[in-house]
């Protein structure tokens, strides 16, 4: 009997061990995947920053804080071989001999391959800059034909916490993501990637303007918001202080990502949009809620579902919206694929399509904006393309 119990116990331990091994392996591979995305974002952003500063007049200087994968401790820049501080950084020397033509090196060296980025110079060769709180802080100065990279010193005034994830150039639409309630930075960054990819890279009309967006993150958790239950369940913030936090990054639109599962134990909390601020309940069962809120903020579109009880208090909001009209719906006459469908915020107004992202986005036909809303958004996106 005892022998049989022993065999069962060993068998159970083997199963538990196997499950643990699989879970750990999966967790490890997902962390690696996030790090790889962050690494590629860093490479693209660095190249874009160098390209933009290079086009500016000689002497133009700018400061950047680039988001880095957590495993990278130091980044070394070595653009040429002539003046070389061999004794200070023997590891860089070894890597340069191994990866011929490489100019940017990472420590620890085994995690990411060195890069062959051109168009920059450094006063010290190599220039090695430590990664502080997952950020690499650099000064870039135009030298006419090349860009001089230097480390940000303590004397430099840097907006404390901004990290650049994707940089496509100046005059682009700057999106900043703020962290509210996440347990770890990697979970927050993972959600930033999920929403940005899901909305701005996969959904029309945003997907047609993939070069129009700069993406920034503030990893430090904001402490100026709370979950409000009156008059309804939503995320309430001290907006003045929240905008001050967002101002540490270039920001045309601010996305506050709230880990509601941690903050409110899975209770139903609404996402919302006011001005250029979007507060997102990341536990919402549909990612399209972000597209819906961005439609409010960026497109100044109103809801195409009817909520007379609340909208009757601000009828002017519906009157002035580009996607709600009274019969005969002159606002969108001539746009193909549109009609005059009853109900748009108020029952006395009409929508251009039967359903859309601005309507019931979880129902049939709710996964696209429709011709009128797309046109409104495209016209605005053109400004940043």
């Amino acid at each position: 009997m005892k022998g049989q119990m022993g065999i069962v116990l060993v068998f159970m331990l083997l199963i538990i061990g196997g499950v643990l091994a699989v879970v750990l392996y999966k967790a490890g591979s997902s962390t690696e995947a996030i790090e790889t995305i962050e690494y590629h974002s860093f490479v693209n952003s660095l190249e874009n920053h160098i390209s933009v500063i290079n086009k500016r007049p000689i002497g133009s200087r700018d400061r950047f804080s680039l988001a880095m994968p957590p495993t990278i401790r130091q980044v070394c820049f070595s653009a040429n071989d002539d003046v070389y501080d061999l004794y200070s950084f023997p590891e860089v020397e070894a890597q340069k001999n191994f990866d011929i033509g490489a100019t940017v090196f990472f420590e620890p060296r085994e995690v990411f391959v060195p890069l062959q980025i051109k168009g920059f110079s450094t006063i010290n060769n190599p220039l090695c800059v430590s990664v502080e709180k997952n950020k690499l802080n650099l000064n870039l100065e135009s030298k006419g034909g090349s860009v001089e990279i230097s480390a940000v010193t303590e004397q430099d005034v840097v907006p404390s916490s901004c990290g650049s994830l994707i940089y496509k150039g100046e005059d682009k639409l700057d999106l900043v993501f703020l962290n509210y309630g996440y347990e770890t930075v990697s979970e927050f960054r993972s959600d930033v990637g999920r929403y940005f990819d899901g909305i701005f890279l996969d959904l029309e009309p945003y997907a047609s303007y993939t070069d129009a967006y700069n993406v920034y993150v503030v990893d430090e958790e904001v402490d100026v918001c709370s979950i409000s239950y009156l008059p309804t369940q939503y995320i309430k913030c001290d907006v003045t202080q929240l905008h001050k936090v967002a101002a540490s990054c270039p920001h045309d639109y601010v996305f506050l990502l709230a880990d509601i599962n941690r903050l409110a134990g899975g209770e139903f909390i609404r996402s919302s949009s006011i001005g250029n601020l979007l507060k997102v309940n990341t536990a919402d069962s549909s990612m399209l809620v972000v597209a819906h809120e961005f439609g409010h903020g960026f497109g100044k579109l109103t809801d195409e579902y009817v909520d007379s009880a609340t909208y009757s208090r601000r009828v002017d909001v519906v009157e002035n919206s580009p996607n709600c009209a009274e019969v005969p719906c002159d606002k969108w006459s001539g746009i193909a694929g549109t009609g005059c469908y009853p109900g748009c915020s108020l029952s006395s107004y009409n929508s251009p399509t039967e359903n859309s992202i601005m309507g019931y986005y979880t129902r049939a036909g709710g996964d696209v904006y429709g011709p009128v809303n797309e046109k409104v958004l495209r016209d605005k996106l053109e400004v940043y393309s």
Partner: protein
Amino acid sequence: MRFFGFILLIFLFIIPISFAVPGPISVLDLSYEEGEIVLHERVEGFGYYPDRKAESGDATVEVMADGVVLYSTSFVPPFVEFLDGTSGDVSLGGVLVVDSFALVVPSFAGEDAIIIAGKGYTRSYDVGEKGSILLPLLLILAIVTILIILMIRISRR
């Protein structure tokens, strides 16, 4: 005075070129009173402000210095906060009528007024530094000192 105005105009042309660089900013805490936007508080900071390139509203904010407009932007004042959510197949929405909102604008050394305008109204707010009152006082003190010295010298003769 003209020279000062000229310098400010030069700054005005430089602003669009350098807006991407962090600098002094003001977060304006705005609220509605009888349908008009009023400045409740101004919080100073350092960082960036939105370009609002794709936004053309009927409200404007101007940052002024000595009668010269240093920065101007138009915006759509948010009267409501849109609320939305899905729980399974159930969609819950609606709006909350808001009585305040915030706006980030650049801040300048020497700025002395912020002007907020909407449909049919304009409100001006004095945001000049208290130190600027010292300037005329110092000038008067200097003139009085010179006059006293001159009087002493004349009386000695």
